[in-house]
């Protein structure tokens, strides 16, 4: 239980020291903040769910701004492929737990900040105890089950949370579960099916993008603590970094919402993995893919050397083809989005093997083809990366 920390939270406000007054001077002279506002920040607590791409900049700025207590929840370790965007962590931290890495970095930025580490994945069993008592939650998680879990726990506990989510070059931000405002379920009633949204590991993400969105989340968290300005309650901010457009759409509370509506059917936490149907899309691993007929790389190699060589289709993008391809075996590039263009030219009686990077997009392609009568298409299990690992190590993996 975190009741001890709750009590700590409820203790008498602590005033600023002379050193703190100097450290936060540029913020204190803002009329909207002032010494009272800075004291509010010092006595506030913010919990970061996920200290990855979004949680990294959020943690840096919240620590620098003087939030008195920061909680960091993350069950992952720092990986080399994280460092392109997760700026809280550095090269020497590879292999360490993200919460430990976050703790060290925050302490170097601002030793006055108290850091509470939760080196675990948030689950239905630990979420209420973990979230209870914090003033604001920042959701920087990377999968749908955790996003619905954070939402429901925050609604049940009455804690506002700052939402941020990213994909390739685009991001979304809002404030949910604030008094009178909508929640995440009011916007997204259902999670997507497992094959509907590729993960960042599969689709890529611009490293700066979570920097933008995480900083927006930190801004909103500070505004909520200070009670200033117009937080993103009832508004969804849409950021497109390619066009550099910031747009917003209006969100409304759904009176029929199953968790924050007038007659909620969800009054305690549920099984979110089951609810999302395996829709986990962590940055580090691809989501569950559609169940389709497959062929493994050894079998494909054997068939290529026999008289039964199939036609090979690569459903990745042009730039990925340039990294690695099966062109020497007659593979043809056709990005997934253009699959429909060749349906008329395709002979349904020809054996077809489809591949992508790891086998996710190609599974979608096989499923799409099967739905229009091409039942001889096979998905190359593990994609071209698996081919590179087991058949042709001269090919790079990515």
């Amino acid at each position, binding site marked *: 239980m975190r009741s001890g920390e709750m009590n700590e939270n409820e203790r008498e406000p602590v005033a600023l020291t002379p050193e703190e007054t100097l450290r936060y001077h540029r913020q204190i002279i803002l009329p909207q903040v002032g010494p009272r506002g800075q004291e509010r920040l010092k006595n506030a607590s913010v919990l970061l769910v996920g200290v990855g791409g979004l949680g990294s900049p959020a943690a840096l700025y919240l620590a620098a701004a003087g939030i008195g207590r920061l909680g960091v929840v993350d069950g992952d370790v720092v990986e080399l492929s994280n460092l392109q965007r997760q700026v809280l962590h550095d090269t020497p931290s590879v292999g360490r737990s993200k919460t430990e890495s976050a703790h060290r970095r925050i302490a170097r930025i601002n030793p006055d900040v108290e850091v509470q580490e939760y080196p675990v994945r948030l689950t239905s069993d630990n979420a209420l105890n973990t979230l209870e008592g914090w003033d604001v939650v920042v959701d920087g998680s990377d999968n749908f089950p955790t996003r619905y879990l954070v939402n429901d726990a925050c609604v049940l506990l009455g804690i506002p949370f700052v939402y941020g989510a990213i994909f390739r070059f685009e991001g979304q931000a809002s404030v949910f579960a604030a008094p009178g405002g909508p929640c995440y379920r009011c916007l997204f009633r259902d999670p997507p099916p497992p094959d509907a949204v590729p993960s960042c590991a599969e689709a890529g993400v611009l490293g700066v993008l979570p920097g933008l969105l995480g900083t927006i989340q930190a801004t909103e968290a500070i505004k909520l603590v200070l009670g200033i300005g117009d937080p993103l309650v009832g508004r969804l901010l849409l950021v497109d970094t390619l066009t550099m457009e910031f747009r917003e759409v209006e969100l409304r509370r759904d009176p029929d919402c199953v968790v924050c509506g007038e007659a909620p059917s969800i009054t305690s936490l549920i099984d979110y993995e089951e609810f999302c149907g395996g829709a986990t899309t962590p940055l580090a691993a691809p989501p569950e893919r559609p169940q389709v007929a497959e062929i493994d790389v050894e079998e494909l190699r054997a068939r290529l050397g026999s008289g039964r060589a199939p036609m090979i289709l690569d459903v990745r993008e042009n730039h990925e083809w340039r990294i690695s391809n099966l062109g020497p075996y007659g593979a043809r590039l056709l*990005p997934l989005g253009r699959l429909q263009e060749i349906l008329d030219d395709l002979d349904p009686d020809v054996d077809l093997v489809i591949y992508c990077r790891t086998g996710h997009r190609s599974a979608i392609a096989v499923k799409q083809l099967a739905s229009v009568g091409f039942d001889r298409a096979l998905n190359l299990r593990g994609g071209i990366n698996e081919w590179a690992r087991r058949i042709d190590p001269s090919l790079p993996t990515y």
Partner: protein
Amino acid sequence: MSDRGLVTVRVPEPLRDFTGGRGQLHLDAGTVDAVLEQIRRTEPLLAGRLFEDDGSVRGFINVFVDGTEIRHLEAGRREVGPGSVVAIVPSVAGG
């Protein structure tokens, strides 16, 4: 033909695999329903992602017309016109 008199449909990144990479569609339509019908007719791959079998927009996708979600548009206010922007907003989980 100029796009100026058309409705712009913004297609977000996660769904551009189903429009051949296009981020915008320009449609000549007078109502929200006509916009959705044109998407069904001319962009079957995208439509397969947007709609349930019964034709409704799927629960993890929202469609906003000039900033308002179409489920909140009153029956008499479902017109769109030249310059209207229809934004498709799917749930994404990246963090």
